[in-house]
């Protein structure tokens, strides 16, 4: 448990990130409390993905600090890794496996013990029941995204969601599902940082963070 009086969410202070030798943004301050989400916007190449990767611990910031529940988050800390879900552009699905295999393997890697019935229910929820045994290589771009939604629907216990363009290639029904998932996550006390160009159909209103204004 966090000491009383400290902020029980995600915080970034004076964060600066670079791609190669080019500084993408500097003096970024971010504060997301439990039950809230932030919509990350910015032009292409403004550093949205870099920010998400940096918070997840894949990249190192140039300057500044990232705090989780009031303490600097250590990227190698198993506790932090169990709490944080990162879903990037290459979502991490193997073409050789079918939908159920992919989802089962990923959730096992995430440290979640999901029974088979729960797995099938998650696949059913995102409307892929008929494709459950289909090799991934034969799915459409939108159906692949839906598998990522199925992963999220089993990941409410992991509190911080870092999503990079989760709505890409999704149809209207898929977007609504994504919105419902984020809402359910926030209700469960989770928090989310979502890089997106289109607004999500969520009940919860996000705070907006634009990287365009932070370009040095």
């Amino acid at each position, binding site marked *: 448990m966090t000491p009383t009086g400290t902020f029980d969410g995600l915080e970034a202070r004076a964060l600066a990130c670079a791609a190669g030798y080019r500084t993408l943004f500097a003096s970024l301050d971010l504060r997301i409390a439990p039950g809230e989400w932030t919509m990350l916007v910015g032009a292409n190449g403004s550093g949205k993905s870099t920010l998400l990767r940096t918070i997840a611990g894949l990249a190192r910031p140039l300057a500044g600090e990232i705090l989780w529940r009031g303490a600097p988050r250590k990227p190698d800390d198993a506790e932090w*890794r*169990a709490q944080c879900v990162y879903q990037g552009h290459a979502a991490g699905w*193997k073409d*050789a*496996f079918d939908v159920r295999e992919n989802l089962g393997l990923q959730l096992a890697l995430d440290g*979640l013990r999901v029974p088979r019935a729960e797995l099938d229910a998650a696949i*059913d929820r995102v409307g892929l029941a008929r494709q459950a045994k289909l090799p991934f290589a034969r799915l459409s771009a939108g159906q692949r995204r839906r598998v990522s939604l199925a992963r999220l629907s089993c990941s409410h216990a992991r509190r911080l969601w870092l999503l990079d363009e989760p709505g890409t290639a999704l149809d209207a029904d898929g977007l609504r599902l994504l919105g419902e*998932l984020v809402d359910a996550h926030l209700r469960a006390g989770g928090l989310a940082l979502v890089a997106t160009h289109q607004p999500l159909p969520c009940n919860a209103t996000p705070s907006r963070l634009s990287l365009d204004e932070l370009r040095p």
Partner: protein
Amino acid sequence: MQRDALAALARRTAPVTQPAPPGVIAALRWACARDLRLALRSRSELALIVVFFLLVTSLFPLAVSPDPELLRAMAAGIVWVAALLASLLGLARLFAADHADGTLEQMVLAPAPLAALVAGKVLAHWIATGLPLVLLAPLAGLQFGLGADAIGVLVVALALGTPVLSWLGAIAAALTLGARGGSSLLALLVLPLAVPVLIFGAGSVESYAAGLGAEAHLSLLTAGAIAAWVLGPAVTALAVKIAHE
């Protein structure tokens, strides 16, 4: 119907299960089972390595000379060089495929220790590419007229040496991730480092044939194998992490 499912999803605010970081053994088993399953899906790639090994070993008698004495003297060296080159074939894909589709990224971020996941991957790689060579070595040995006990030494030496080759390859494969021309760079990195393994591996059979016993060579190979298994996971995990920054 789907609306119902959505409503049920929205109502359920309690987490499915609390995430529990998997232990070292569980992580190793996860990665090994996953990669073996992947290997079974791409059997042609594995067959390529085995066929390459058998072809190279059977080309030597045609190219050099059919003289049985000469071939017997060269047998261990030929088998070892063929095994080394064959083991290079599958290396480039050890991490590159997972890097390209983002699964490696998820492994780096997973609560499980990355070194254990990497060790599982390398173990699976050895089972899929190294072990078949160890099992085929007697066949290659017979081709060259090696005696039964010399074949035994050859098999033991290969069983000790090929995991070292796998680990050297894994470190190089992780270091060259994302580099242009990674696979050719990989061969340049691995081959010089593999020289000691080659010398002691091939030397064990020669020294046995000369009546000196193979213990010294096999002990050194064992030491190499232990060092590879102890140091390999941490070094490879570090290289994989650097590749993602």
